[in-house]
């Protein structure tokens, strides 16, 4: 993503690197679930970690987000959306599961 809003990347290299990394980061959690050898909690933690890393890989290699190449306004909008998501998703889960817990008492 650069400010011009026009395609400027002339090399397939970033897309191929992104595809390779994304493939590995997808194969690991799918293989773990298929094998079913690790305990449930460890599997869920590995799924979460590979998902977060894969989102970063996609942002870097497919959307071309970079701290220097991406305009500040775009990064600020992304950070703001991130904060809203943490508040709203975190708040929803906290309130609803707390409520659920109390109703079961």
């Amino acid at each position, binding site marked *: 993503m650069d400010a*011009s*809003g026009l395609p400027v990347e002339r090399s397939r290299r970033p897309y191929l690197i992104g595809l390779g990394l994304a493939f590995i980061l997808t194969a690991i959690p799918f293989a773990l679930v298929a094998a079913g050898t690790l305990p449930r909690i460890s599997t869920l933690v590995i799924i979460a970690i590979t998902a977060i890393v894969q989102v970063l890989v*996609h942002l870097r290699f497919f959307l071309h987000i970079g701290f220097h190449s991406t305009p500040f306004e775009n990064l600020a909008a992304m950070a703001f959306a991130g904060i809203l998501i943490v508040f*709203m998703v975190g708040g929803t889960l906290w309130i609803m599961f707390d409520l659920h817990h109390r109703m079961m008492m």
Partner: protein
Amino acid sequence: MTADTLGTVEMAALPTSDTQKYEDRAFGFWIYLMSDAIIFALLFATYLVMLGNTARGPTGQQLFSLEHAAAETAVLLLSSATFGFASVAFAQASRPGVIQWLSVTAVLGLGFLLLEYQEFSGMIAKGAGPDRSGFLSAFFALVGTHGLHVSAGIIWILVMIGQVLTKGLTRPVASRVMRLGLFWHFLDIIWIGIFSVVYLPGLV
């Protein structure tokens, strides 16, 4: 930002107000994508809250298929890369390349929709439709909203193939293809969330 970034493509020597216009459009679209991310985040939150509310009906463990989810993931991931190749072809001013890779992306997108349609219709045939339980309502709302976005993306890809054929690689078309690319790569990021929150934990 200089006007001749696209080099050989016929878009040099445009007034700066035009450059400003495309920068504004790219930024406006980025704001839309961020608000769309918030919609999806809340659908994920709803899904997690409703996860246990199966109303004695089927659970994810009984309904989801690892092979099916893997196939959907592979098709969508590949389509993100092929869209990237279309953007590269655009930057290299190769009109046949753009049309070829956009077509491949549209076909992969249609393949994804076909897989999703099979999955949804199979679940509904088993009596596990969105009306069966709160869990299934949340599942269809989340995965279905993503599917609707992919459908809109495919229509947009077909429109852009038409514009590249009729208008050529002009600057307004370049700006639209770039925004479509942001949209398409964004949908693939949402899908990472779907297989990591819905399918894999459901099958662990």
